[in-house]
């Protein structure tokens, strides 16, 4: 592996010569440069219904999960919220979303001060490569969120293998339909 210089956007990686020893990599969840975490329409509607609003401030909640999964059938994930979990200041609800799944919601946990630690781990199914979102509602009513990009390899080529052929077919059928309509009009 050749020496790699830092480039602005990509992560800093310092790799020794060849495929040999690797310096520990720091993997920072995707830096949410935006002011808010915006979910796709389907998911934000559910969030609105559950939390009363879909405006999420980035921060406080983190998603710990692998950045790669093969089938996506059993992906370990941990939702963690930075909260003292006291009577006065605690997490009331944590939700997870996967826009790439047939159904949006991944998880929905109601906890309170009795939990002592706002951290829940489980295993979920993910249908395709894309973003996973997590949202937390605190006792003070504030909403926090994060998102994480994960690659699902198996089936990655399932959806796009015939894309060009279906598109070409659609163009042909549309062209023929037009021609037939025009012919009928005369």
């Amino acid at each position: 592996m050749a020496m790699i210089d830092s480039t602005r956007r990509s992560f800093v990686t310092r790799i020794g010569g060849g495929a040999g020893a690797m310096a520990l990599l720091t993997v920072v969840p995707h830096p949410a440069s935006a002011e808010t975490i915006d979910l796709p329409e389907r998911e934000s509607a559910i969030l609105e219904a559950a939390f009363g609003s879909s405006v999420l401030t980035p921060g406080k909640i983190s998603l710990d999960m692998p950045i790669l999964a093969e089938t996506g059938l059993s992906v370990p994930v941990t939702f963690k919220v930075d909260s003292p979990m006291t009577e006065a200041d605690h997490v009331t609800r944590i939700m997870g979303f996967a826009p790439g799944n047939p159904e949006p919601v991944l998880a929905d946990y109601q906890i309170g001060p009795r939990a002592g630690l706002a951290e829940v781990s489980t295993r979920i199914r993910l249908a395709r490569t894309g973003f996973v979102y997590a949202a937390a509602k605190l006792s003070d009513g504030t909403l926090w969120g994060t998102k994480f990009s994960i690659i699902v390899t198996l089936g990655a080529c399932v959806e796009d293998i015939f894309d060009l052929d279906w598109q070409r077919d659609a163009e042909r059928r549309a062209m023929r339909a037009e021609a037939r309509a025009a012919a009928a009009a005369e």
Partner: protein
Amino acid sequence: MNIHNVSRRKFIVTSATAAGGMMLGFNLPAQAAQMNANPWELPTDKEGQEVNAWLAIDPDGTVTIRVGQSEMGEGVFTSMPMIVAEELHVDWKMVKAAYASGNRYLRQKAEDYQVAAGILNEDHQVYRRMGTGGSGAVRRSRTFLQQAGASARERLKEAAAQAWGVARADVTAKDSVLSSGNRTGTFAEFATAASTVALDVEPVIKTPDQFNLLGASVARLDTPLKVNGSATYGIDIRLPGMVYAAVRANPVPYGGIDSYDADAIMGLPGVIQVVEIVPGEGQDLRSGLQPAVAVIANSYTRALSALDQMPIKWSATPNDGVNSRDLFADANAALGMPGAISVDEGDTAGAIAGATTVVEGDYQAPYQSHACMEPFNCTVHITDNRADVYGSFQNPPGALAVVAEQLGMDPINVFSHTTFLGGGFGRRSRNDEPRQAAEIARQVGRPVKMVWTREEDMMQNKMRPMAVARFKAGLGPDGMPVGWHARVAGHSITAHIRPERIENGLDNSLLAAVRNHPYNIPNQLVDMHVRNSHIPVHYWRSVNASQNVFMAEQFVDEMAQAGGHDPLDFRLKMVEDLEDWSLVLNTLKEKSGWTTDLPPGTGMGIGISEEFGTVVGQVATVTVSRRGQLTIDKIVAAVDCGHLVNPAIAEGQIESAIVYGLSACLAGEVTISGGQVVENNFDTFKVLRINEMPIIETHWALTGGDKWGGLGEPGLPPVAAAVANAIFYATGKRPREMPIVHTDLSWG
């Protein structure tokens, strides 16, 4: 079955290279190896200066270009670097290649210049696409590979411009030399500066008319390693302290193990331990771990002979009674029932009911095996919190993910090392085997190389699905179709891998080349049934089109005959509004000397289809003796893939697909009996051999423009139809079933 013949009644065979068509001359000297025998390692021992993730420049000017796709014969270790080199303006002789790293693909997002140039977006991984399939290497990577070359070139020019105090526009880059006025410099000199210089605007990539390297048949970079046995394949990996594993699973796929007697073989020479592989609780079978047992020894032959001697009792499975005959009967029964509708244009039933002539035809195709020459294998080496996996991967990130999942490790600490592949054909994009190797390595605690016997490779293969089809068409008074109904019942890959994408029974990929045929027929109805069995299925070269075109294009011939048309003109008439299909058909007509007026026992047949953006038509010339001996004399192919990166490699892919297709339509098949595969080695699984090889001519009929079609697979589907249609003209008999050996072709 006999193929190719030197005889009075046949065409006189010209010796030497019988490949005609536009084959550019080869005047290139034999090359030294242009990559490391271990293709994942650097080709040179020097620390090249990386200009971007795709290329690094050594002090001596050597440019190492990274290749994202797997080299399994389709020549990506030459065609991908050519694309980068085209824009880089590097001296081609200075180009070497090495695989892109699967681990780095994971950790690094798209580079700035790709995002700035609008080629990739910031959520794409740095190497964008490391799976190899769908004949997508060139067409899906071309843009970002060109951008990688162009942006590097412009950065080199900018570095020189800044050093020489001139405008970048006054600097030219050609054959690794930068020059402005009388000043010159090499790429190597400015590589370091170029890696950090910033450009305000990224260069625009070339259009095909500006290419000068692309389109040339340069010699393959990997050939020198493949003629002296030095190229490393997965099966060749040797690590210090490595042990070997011979594995066997229940011959009935996904069946369990009742019992095995490890003590009976522990004393055999070299045997270290016996490992049982148990799928995790609830581990969905699609994720691949099947119950299996492996013997670990200090050499493969010792592991295998111990495994052969170990008493193993497989448990009964609910599928022990499954056999091909019943599966076909079940699928054929489905043809009588309406299926999930994929295409419904106009009033097909009405059109057929009112037609002058009605034509019907049923067809059938069996499971088919990949039978790559290199049996399955994988090597996994686990150290404290790192794992290295070596193998012939068609989907390196997949292999990496599977090993990480199985070992419960963070993928960041798993490194995949892709070797040369002894054939992939779609089979190696499934990663069940690396998962099995990882599980063995986890239990063994030492680097272990798992190798499957040919029997295991065939019996545990993920097959090309079986399928049956029924066609029905109505012809008008002019003998042209007014209504076309196609119904396919078969084993669905999507239902096996991604069931959630099947909505009310519809899997469009099962209808490839049936739902998207280009014939201009006013009323069309295409529907399908999913008929899966316990036999796992996966992508096979050209996927479902490999059987669908055999069926659909024979039916097009049946319509032509019923309508009193010449089959080629019949097709031309139905695609006269399509430039590419018309060009391919007319090229075929001219180059093959098409005629249906031939003495009995000799016939010409046509088959044409479009897949992955490429149109391929073929005319087969066959001879059948009175007693039914079939000889394939010649296949003429006409191809429109828009543009060519390396014509010689492209022609090799068309010829390769034709041979692979002939193997699958003449005598090769996979039958199921007692729930297990019957043909488990090359004595019963028939493949085309050199003495059965017809003459093959490939002619390019390129329509250019923005068409970039794939080449690895589209050449396969038409051959079965062309041969079957030729047999009809030679004998009057229509082989409705693959393989053709099942049909008695005797005549006269």
